[in-house]
């Protein structure tokens, strides 16, 4: 049966108007219409990714509730594809459904104070204790940790091996008494990210994803998907920030100047180039796994977001001197086009740091796409414990 018919069947059996939101989302998952490219039984149909648009359009037209993807971006964009690729059958059955419906929010415990771009240097330790692992360490910049039920976690299981080889990948229960989440206030005023202290956290071995010592390899799937999640969604023309700026330009002729006009046209052009680049990348993406080209979208997206958000503040003139609200809050959604121009300007600064900085992404492109030689390095083959610090 085709996806359109299945969607109509779902709607016939679960009238969105009379069905509880969560019940509807669960039924949608069980019908394989959550993410059609996932396998049957895990919210999908094993169908081409492109058919998702058919489902989404039918459901939107019927006024069906969605899973509010802005709230669960890390789960959808990073944890899910990793669990799908490397998880056990039990892990897939346990985690994917509540992840997709948004019942369980996920966060990403990767970065540490001493391991950012050089993520493989991370020092959080996981020590085996029977059929559990005991985890101690500190993570930082953990977005949405305060709202999360689960985390994807990288920890060092063998300090005697070179840094890339002694890491394992876990699912960490954020309600474990050894997990402490402290807000970390950002330049926007709010605290979207946190510091997370892990003290004697017990993780069952059944919550390890991939083999012991293969965490780095598993993490590549997460990171490649993160870059696509940040820069790679299908958007209509004027779909992102450019739409916001263009609408202001149209509505407020008194703000216009020739200099801003030239920059607006350049921004519109660049937005269109990036939109079509993403479209072409999606057409190429038949294997379902984004490669290093995903880095291209994220790099381009960050540059454009910063350009446009800066332009928007200038365009607003006197109004651009204000700011909506500096109150320290702990938001539960991440929305790059949310709030006002000043917020968007400041939040966009993170786009070239989070998910791999633009400098690191250029390294990735230069080495993995263009095949240029790596810089000489001394840290690759030394045991992690002997690295210079």
């Amino acid at each position, binding site marked *: 049966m085709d996806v359109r018919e299945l969607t109509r069947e779902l709607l016939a059996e679960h009238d969105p108007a009379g069905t509880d939101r969560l019940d509807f989302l669960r039924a949608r998952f069980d019908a394989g219409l959550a993410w059609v490219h996932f396998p049957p039984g895990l919210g999908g149909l094993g169908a081409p990714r492109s058919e998702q648009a058919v489902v989404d359009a039918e459901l939107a037209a019927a006024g069906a509730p969605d899973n509010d993807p802005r709230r669960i971006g890390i789960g959808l964009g990073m944890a899910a594809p990793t669990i799908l690729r490397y998880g056990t059958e039990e892990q897939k059955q346990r985690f994917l459904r509540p992840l997709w419906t948004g019942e369980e929010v996920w966060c990403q415990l990767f970065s540490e104070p001493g391991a950012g771009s050089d993520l493989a240097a991370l020092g959080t330790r996981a020590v085996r204790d029977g059929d559990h692992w005991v985890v101690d360490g500190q993570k930082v910049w953990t977005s949405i940790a305060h709202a999360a039920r689960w985390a994807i976690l990288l920890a060092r299981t063998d300090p005697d091996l070179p840094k890339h080889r002694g890491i394992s990948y876990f699912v960490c229960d954020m309600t474990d008494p050894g997990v402490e989440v402290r807000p970390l206030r950002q330049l926007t005023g709010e605290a979207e990210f946190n510091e997370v202290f892990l003290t004697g956290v017990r993780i069952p071995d059944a919550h390890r994803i991939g083999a012991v010592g293969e965490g780095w390899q598993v993490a590549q799937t997460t990171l490649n998907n993160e870059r696509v999640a940040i820069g790679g969604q299908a958007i209509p023309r004027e779909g992102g920030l450019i739409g916001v700026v263009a609408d202001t330009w149209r509505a407020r002729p008194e703000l216009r100047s020739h200099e801003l006009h030239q920059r607006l046209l350049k921004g*519109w052009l660049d937005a269109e180039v990036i939109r079509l680049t993403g479209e072409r990348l999606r057409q190429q993406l038949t294997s379902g796994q984004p490669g290093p080209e995903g880095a291209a979208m994220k790099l381009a997206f960050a540059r454009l977001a910063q350009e446009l958000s800066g332009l928007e503040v200038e365009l607003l003139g006197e109004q651009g001197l204000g700011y909506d609200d500096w109150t320290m809050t702990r938001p539960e959604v991440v929305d790059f086009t949310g709030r006002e121009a000043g917020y968007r300007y400041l939040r966009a600064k993170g786009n070239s740091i989070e998910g791999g900085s633009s400098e690191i992404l250029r390294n990735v492109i230069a080495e993995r796409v263009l095949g240029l030689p790596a810089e000489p390095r001394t840290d690759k083959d030394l045991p992690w414990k002997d690295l210079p610090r």
Partner: protein
Amino acid sequence: MSDLLYSEIEEELRSSVRALLTDHCPPSAILARCEGPEPYDLPLWRSLATGLGVAGLQVPESLGGAGASLREVAVVLEELGRSVAPVPYFGSSVLGLTALLACEDRELLPGVASGALTATLAVPFSTAPDAALPSVSVGPSGTLTGRITSVADALPADVLLVPADGGLYAVETATVTRRTSLDLTRQLADVTLDGTPARQLASHDGPVRQALLTGAGLLASEQLGLAEWCLSTTVGYLKERRQFGRQVGSFQALKHRLADLWLETVGGRAVARYAADALATDSPDTAIAVAVAQAHCGALAVRAAEECIQLHGGIGMTWEHPAHLYLKRAKADQLALGTPGHHRNTLADLADLPVPSP
């Protein structure tokens, strides 16, 4: 959404064009030819046009063509850009055939589509799709008088398609004078008409405008191919060249520049493909697709060629190394059929981003 990829048939076409150009159009041959009396490689043009049969790809078979589309034409242009081959494909098969296909008079079409005749559109190569056309007057007996400067691919043309007095005319006996041109691989010429006999092909400017718009959109594919050559040649060189005891390509300052150039090139492929597909399918979005493609790719090709020279160091500055052929083509292409700035400014209307009032 339009198909932004290449079909298998398109890839096959690419391979055969590339194989021919690799065998018959090495940079040394281009360099040897460009200052001589025959700057165009006519034997190569014949092999391409009639041997491979690419002269009239987009022309229906019933009219003497290959029955393919402008998407395939764009693939040929990518390869011609990659090799800066001195052949009049752009003038004859892109500008010429687009104009002829839009005229009701079909007499010349089969000849140009088969490659037996070479044509070009007699306008300054810098003419943007919406710009004023040169003034050529039509005499009482249908003869033409006027002068048109900087015409691309006029030197080897058998027939010139001359816009005059709002219409389009075919001319076979104009005086064509070679100019010393910035671009050594597509040399321009001035066309002088002095009561020259002509045959009217159209009484309106539709065919000319269509040819200019199509030319601007497809030129992006040539620019893309050129940029790809510059990028891959530079990457290849930097992997080999050693200084300070290591490959120069391992220095991060250079890696980042090339990563940025790669990113622009990837964007160029998407927009050039989008424009070719829009033109091939007569999409309602064609005007925007062309403006976006030309605004982006015009700048891309120049940057790629400039980076290529810089990152080759001294060797890049020599006459012997082919990089300058690409720089000259890229810079001339940037002005051709409207500059990137011109195309960007047309977006003000097309995308409803109004110019500030004075």
